[in-house]
């Protein structure tokens, strides 16, 4: 028996669910945004690694729903519902949306980090999910790990150390 629990990994444009004592982690967030959805009274949590704001930007037929804010957040809300967590109880912690490179050019795709953060907030608002804590923007990559027991989101950066929110 491993009482320590495992680490559930969430890849890029991916989502997953973890239950205590496991933790859930996504590594190397740049302009992407990590969204954790949880209920204070439950130890089952979900994480989505959002890469793009809006699936209508997608030009291909079949889409990976975890990739977009507008499809990933609803999909995770549904998955948690199947785990018995009612959407109105959900709270969120989010991190990421950095601007990894400084360009003089103003092409819109280059502002992808801030746009991802805006889109995530918009869709959380749509579901009336309050954001309890966030660490967004800046220009550092982040690795985030959420502990379903403590509801703390641990954020590691290369240049700015470690913090919990």
């Amino acid at each position, binding site marked *: 028996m491993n009482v320590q629990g495992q680490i559930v990994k969430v*890849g*890029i*444009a*991916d989502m997953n669910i973890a239950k205590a004592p496991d933790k859930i982690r996504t*590594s*190397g*967030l*740049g*302009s*992407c945004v990590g969204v954790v959805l949880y209920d204070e009274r439950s130890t089952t949590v979900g994480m989505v690694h959002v*890469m*793009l704001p809006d699936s209508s*930007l*997608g*030009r*291909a037929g079949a889409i*990976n729903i975890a*990739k977009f804010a507008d499809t990933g957040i609803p999909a995770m809300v549904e998955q948690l519902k199947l785990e018995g967590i009612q959407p109105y109880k959900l709270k969120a912690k989010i991190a990421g949306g*950095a601007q*990894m*490179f*400084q*360009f*003089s*050019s103003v092409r819109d*795709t280059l502002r*992808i980090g801030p746009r991802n953060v805006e889109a995530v907030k918009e869709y959380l608002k749509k579901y009336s999910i309050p954001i309890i804590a966030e660490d967004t923007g800046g*220009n*550092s*990559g*982040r*690795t985030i790990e959420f502990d379903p027991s403590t509801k703390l989101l641990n954020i590691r950066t*290369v*240049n700015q150390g470690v913090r919990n929110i």
Partner: protein
Amino acid sequence: MYDNKITSMHLDVLKEIGNIGAAHAATALSTLLNKKIDMKVPKVEMVSFDDMMDLAGGPERVVAGIYLRIEGDVTGSMFFVLPVEQANRFIRRLIQDETFDFQTGEVSEIGVSAMQELGNILSGSYLSALSDFTSLKIYPTVPALSVDMVGAIISFGLVELSHISDYVIVIDTAINEEDVPNEESVKGHFFLLPDPESFDAIFKALGVN
């Protein structure tokens, strides 16, 4: 083209591109540093985004990453990624300052500027060789530098592509210093990620259908 019609012939053409581009860049690097640089046989692979991070040593590996966009007849993203220890060694040698370190709080401006210039020269030699070989017009944007987790750096170059695909065709050439013990993970990489619609142009220029 992107998802189903790539044949081994196409892959060979792309490998040759990686070969020619990276050979010129490695020569430039070797001249700049006055030391021998090993180049591996290029790999061309169609990989998921997560696998792409693993090619570069895993999403959390700290690297000095140079990123630039390519415009012109071919569009795409290019990365020159060095593990931060290797970048430190290169820059120390270039600016003759043994104390230089990207991972300290205050990174000296001259070191950063040397790294940017290194990225500029190497990507320039890679792309001009590619342009000569294919007779395609290729214009690189000014390279940008970031010292951070490789996942955070490379995912940025996948944004454009991720609108239409969950996979990326990557032309990967690894380089290494000859006199440094060959740890598999400690390697520099050139990654060329042509946009999906650019493959036709590349193949056409080289007479492959």
